[in-house]
């Protein structure tokens, strides 16, 4: 097990540098004129253009320029310096401020998905073809059909502005309560998927041989479901939720924008808009690490849930 984790960690280092190279190359290739993007529609003075060009090595172009700038970036990265955004802010500091709130938001969303999705999925799986099962099917299809870009403003307008159950936006340093509505909106999609996944899995396992055996042994129904069915049904759900944690963190661009939460998605959106290459690469690199770690955790959890799986 220990060797397995070590091997995975070493692979992660390679994967990390590989992705930074690809993302850096993509940003480099797609870069128009970041100085003009910064100035909007105003004319840029020659002095300012010269100053920014010099400061960010924007004059290094072509293949040679790319490797010059990439290695410069990696050199600083290894020393823990993520560089500066085009407005002169330290990217390390931007990320330091952005991550905690995004992590909080993603955890709330994940908690909502587990609490409601998995529980409802188990109930629907046990009472297959009941009214509950059918109505959750309908609702999940509905939720899966509505994109966040519609759901988020709708929830904000009705629950935040009209009914005033929640604050319309969360802002900086939000309370748990202010993050609840964005968390629910963000988690609703994972909730629906988790629900469908759990339901199918539970329904299938209920018909398995070992469940019949357990029944004929005269075990309590509660014990059959909680120990025998649930544990086996959770394997696909855990896989899904593990990957989903990464998705929730990176995919919060819309939700963070609508609810004005200055997190990772909020900064990524701005970085792309202003062609701020270093900032995009910085954010994406950290996202890659999140994905890699959550995948590793999922793989390790497999071994816990399923004794047949052994890692060497």
């Amino acid at each position, binding site marked *: 097990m220990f060797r397995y984790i070590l091997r995975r960690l070493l692979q992660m280092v390679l994967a990390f540098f590989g992705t930074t190279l690809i993302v850096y190359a993509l940003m480099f290739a797609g870069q*128009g004129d970041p100085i003009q993007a910064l100035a909007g529609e105003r004319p840029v003075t020659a*002095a300012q253009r010269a100053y*920014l060009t010099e400061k960010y090595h924007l004059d290094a172009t072509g293949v040679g320029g790319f490797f010059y700038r990439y290695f410069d970036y990696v050199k600083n990265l290894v020393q823990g310096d993520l560089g500066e955004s085009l407005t002169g802010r330290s990217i390390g500091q931007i990320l330091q401020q*952005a991550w905690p709130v995004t992590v909080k938001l993603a955890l709330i969303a994940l908690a909502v998905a587990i609490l409601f999705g998995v529980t409802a999925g188990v109930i629907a799986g046990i009472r297959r073809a009941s009214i509950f099962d059918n109505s959750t099917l309908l609702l999940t299809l509905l939720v899966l059909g509505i994109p966040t870009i519609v759901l988020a403003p709708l929830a904000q307008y009705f629950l935040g*502005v009209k009914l005033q159950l929640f604050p319309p*936006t969360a802002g900086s340093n939000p309370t748990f309560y202010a993050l609840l509505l964005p968390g629910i909106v963000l988690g609703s999609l994972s909730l629906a998927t988790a629900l469908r996944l759990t339901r199918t899995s539970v329904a299938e396992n209920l018909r398995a041989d070992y469940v019949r055996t357990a029944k004929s042994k005269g075990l309590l129904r509660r014990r059959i479901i909680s120990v025998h069915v649930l544990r086996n049904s959770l394997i696909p759900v855990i896989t899904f939720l593990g990957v989903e944690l990464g998705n929730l963190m990176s995919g919060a661009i819309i939700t963070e924008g609508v609810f004005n939460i*200055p997190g990772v998605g909020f900064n990524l959106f701005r970085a792309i808009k202003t062609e701020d290459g270093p900032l995009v690469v910085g954010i994406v690199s950290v996202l890659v690490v999140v994905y890699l770690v959550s995948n590793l955790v999922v793989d390790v959890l497999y071994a816990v849930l399923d004794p047949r799986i052994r890692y060497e």
Partner: protein
Amino acid sequence: MQVRRLAAWTALPLAVTLGLAACGSGGNGGSGKSNPNAAVSIQIGEPQHLVPTNTTETSGSQVLAGLFSPLVDYDAQNKPYEVAAQSVASSDNKVWTIKLKDGFTFHNGQKVMSDDYINAWNYGAYAPNGQGASYFFEKIAGYDDLQSVDPDGDGPKAAPAPKAKTMSGLKKVDDQTFTVTLSQPYIDFKTMLGYTAFYPLPKAAFSAPGVLKDSYEQAPIGQGPFKMKGTWQHDAKIEVERYDAYPTEKPKVQGVEFRIYQQLSAAYADVLGDNLDVIPTIATENMSSAAADLGDRYKTSPMSSFQFLAFPTFDKNFSSPDVRKAISMAIDRDEITKSVFKGSQQPARSFVSPVLPGYRDNTAGAAGNFNPTEAKKLYQAAGGPAKITISYNGDGGHKDWVDATCNQLKANLGVDCVGSAEPKFADLLTKVEKKQPVGLFRMGWVMDYPSMEDYLGPLYSTNGSSNYYGYSNPEFDKLVKEGSAAPTQEEAIKKYQQAEDILAKDMPVIPLRFGQNVYGSSTKVKNVEMDLFQRVNLVKIEAVS
């Protein structure tokens, strides 16, 4: 479990009904008693910088307007009057004597002196500092000595250090007086002094002469009605509180929280929920419901923005002024401002903004009036091209009106017309600079200070900073130059107007629309006023308890 999920879904239709029922009852903010001990909140975007000479966008300028007090401000006729200055005078419009008003102190207690202005302006003009607003100082004598040219353009070599660090045109007379010598007489210099770039900087801002402290912009020290409360909290907010030693008109609120939003629609939802007090710009997507949502808290006021279509001079298809006039005549401006912009912008038929002294209605003459039959006749006689392209940047919400304009041209001129989107304005400019065929392209302009010269110079002069389309008319350049060197405002305006008449003949661009501030406020504030630069007047706003 079951119950909660179901409850959530019955809540939504219920919410819709309640929401609809609540519609139409909005409004009636701004009654009640003023509360001088309350703070108000105003929406901004994340400023790029908070150093006066490096601030050219609205968000930064809004914050600085609270922290600093300008030498001059503009009255109802948009003419300058002294605020932090006692007097700004010149006998020949070339050597200007600025006398400071007594009693102004920086927020750290330091008395404001003439050196604070001179040092700040020299810092702004010195090229290696890379300040975004440095071009405001280019009229001052000695500015060129602070610039340097990169010997190989974009190449690897760095530009050498400039000859001088201070402008020879700035001279201290005494602690309260200094003179500014311009390289050429300029009648509008006093008007220009109202811009953000001309604020002073305290001694505490510099770590050595000419070197600004890195930490200064995290908590700028100014001499204005408000001082910083804490530091700039990036992406979150900037808080300021009333500065009690401010000598002139004191603010009527205890403090202001500038809250940073990335999306205007999020800020709009907060204003509806009384969670935010002022939104200086209402997004287009909220425009259709804003008047009903906010009632009398939905307001408009004049602003200087100007939208137009430009003809690149390298495209010979449009070289005849008659073709350009015909296209202008075929556009129904009233219809587009009404249907696409819901009246939030005004149709434009002149080349400068109506907020300016010297503005005249309808200077474009017949070309500004919608006349499809005459337009088609003229277009065919002048041999206009059979296909017109209108290029625009796709990130600014321009698609709707460009498409509407194209449809009008199709119907009225019998030509083929397509709107072509570039991802960003910078991409559009690159194409124009490389002389690639873009057809007509959209442009916008917001003035820096209320003078006709601030439109005529940058937009239509041969060397104008925003004249990307390459319009050049020596006669026009001469008149603008004569105007800015004229001894009195009246004579200057006369020259500027003559220059504008030339534009009407040449039609280098098609004026389309003038913008206005469209803003909203919560029920917790009153007396919300906006200036020409999209900033909330922080001294007038009051909190309602």
